[in-house]
């Protein structure tokens, strides 16, 4: 697998030197082809500043890691990007379109789909229904299409395709034996898998995964990562929040480190690993 090394060292250098004031060169990292660009994002909850002037960009077709201590603001950043929260300030550009302040469904339909840190399955729907829901632009989502006599043919056709696709994905994630079970009866790990599988069903351009592997059995984890790489080869982009350093270091070509709401550093795994501040703030004595 080829790992692109897209980091631009001079800029990183400057950031490392001046980590406290990243804002000066917020979108400094010149990325050849950024699919997602976040600049100067701000979000606060009452007195707590959760995201404080965060800027970064994600290269098209990359697997980018987003790491940082607990409470650094990673999930909040996700929420601001995907329209769950409205940021107080800053902008988000996806694929050349300014999507700041868009509704979640608009963001998703633009091709940017996320998963949740704590899986949000549809509990009283079966696993298969969960899967069938996900794909975008289903004909049958228009009331008249589903109901009008004569208009339903295309819907049925599409449903069949989606069903086959759903089964395939479920088989891959090894939860096909649960396909007809209510999602609420799944174990913790199985729910995360479902969440991920469902996000994949939407056929997005870019996937934002919030700790997808927390609680997933290591053997399966490897398998999923293989799949992520394969998808990456097909042109998908991934932004992954993870605490598993081995995973990040081994599988991401680019890593962004958040700390106290801002971007502390970014660069290739190797560069990040050797940053004193990152080690102190996040990695502890591990490396």
């Amino acid at each position, binding site marked *: 697998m080829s790992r692109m090394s897209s980091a631009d060292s001079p800029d990183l250098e400057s950031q490392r030197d001046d980590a406290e004031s990243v804002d000066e060169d917020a979108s400094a990292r010149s990325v050849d082809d950024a699919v997602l660009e976040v600049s100067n994002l701000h979000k606060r909850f009452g007195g707590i500043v959760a995201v404080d002037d965060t800027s970064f960009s994600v290269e098209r077709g990359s697997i980018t890691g987003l790491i940082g201590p607990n409470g650094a603001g990673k*999930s909040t950043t996700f*929420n601001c990007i995907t329209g*769950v*929260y409205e940021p107080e300030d800053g902008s988000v550009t996806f694929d050349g379109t300014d999507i700041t302040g868009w509704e979640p469904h608009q963001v998703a339909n633009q091709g940017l789909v996320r998963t*949740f*840190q*704590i899986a949000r399955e549809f509990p009283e729907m079966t696993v298969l229904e969960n899967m069938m829901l996900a794909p975008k632009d289903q004909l049958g989502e228009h009331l008249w299409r589903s109901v009008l006599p004569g208009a339903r043919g295309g819907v049925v056709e599409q449903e069949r395709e989606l069903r086959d696709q759903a089964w395939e994905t479920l088989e891959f994630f090894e939860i096909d034996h649960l396909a007809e079970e209510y999602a609420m009866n799944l174990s913790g790990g199985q729910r995360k898998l479902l969440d991920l599988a469902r996000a994949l069903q939407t056929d997005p351009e870019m996937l934002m995964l919030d700790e997808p592997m927390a609680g997933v059995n290591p053997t399966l984890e490897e398998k999923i990562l293989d799949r992520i790489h394969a998808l990456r080869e097909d042109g998908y982009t991934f932004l992954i929040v993870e605490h598993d350093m081995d995973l990040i270091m081994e599988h991401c070509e680019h890593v962004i480190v958040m700390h106290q709401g801002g971007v502390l550093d970014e660069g290739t795994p190797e560069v990040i690993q050797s940053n004193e501040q990152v080690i102190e703030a996040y990695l502890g004595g591990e490396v």
Partner: protein
Amino acid sequence: MYIALAAVGLSMTYSILQFANFSHGDLITTGAFGGWAAAYLVGGWGLASVGELVLVRATSGGVSPGQVGLQVFASPLAILIGMVVAGAVTVLVALAIDRLVYKRMRDQGGISMLIASVGVALALRYFLAVIFTNRKRGVTATAPDVGPFTAHELTLVIIAFALIVGLHLLLQRTKLGKSMRAMADNKDLALITGIPTERVITATWIIGAAFAGISGYLIVLDRGSVSINLGWFLLLLIFAAVILGGIGSIYGALVGSLIIGMTVNVSLIWLPSDLAKVSAFILMILILVFKPNGLLGGVETT
């Protein structure tokens, strides 16, 4: 104000037992009848047959409220005993119902319990109807005025206020308050932390039902007449107050009740009296829509 008392009770059972209790209105009615039966028995001893007194003037004619002299100044003891009995009877009834009905469905969802509570409401109300008949009758004697209020209105406000302050202190000073909140928050976890959930539930019923019963009793004191539909007719307003104020909060229930009461009265200035309630409901809708809590609440992610 009496809505507030009833609303506090409902709000507690709503948040801790996690279901909208539609029988709350009929607990109010239970308290009203139970309490006034006792008040009549004490106040009217010897004036009429025990049966007539206990059934609170079930038949037309017979002894009149004026004869029994049921008015705070004339027979404070009867009124007081009636109030205590109102609370006690309602608590007993509520606990019995909990044992027989709700306890068997603790692990079912709020909706099942809600439906069951509708069943309880009907059974309870018409059980009262069989005993007390469904006639509406006057029960209190006319009360003298104290300043701009009647003595009964004043009694109601003072007692309601005292009870709410008392409850506030109880919940503040004891573990009970916290364990109730914990249960409302996450029942499974409450179990794991060792909270004796059944005992908390019992305590909740005791408080909720006592408040309901006493409020029923006081409403009758204020209005002067009682019928089996007393609580049921109030239930919608009480629910509105509870939801408006925020489920589970004593002060919320208080504020919600006041808002509801005030809208009805204030709108009289501009509108014909039969549209006053309409304006109350419209205002309520507007508050709900524009109250930021209602708009932002509910989004939760981690």
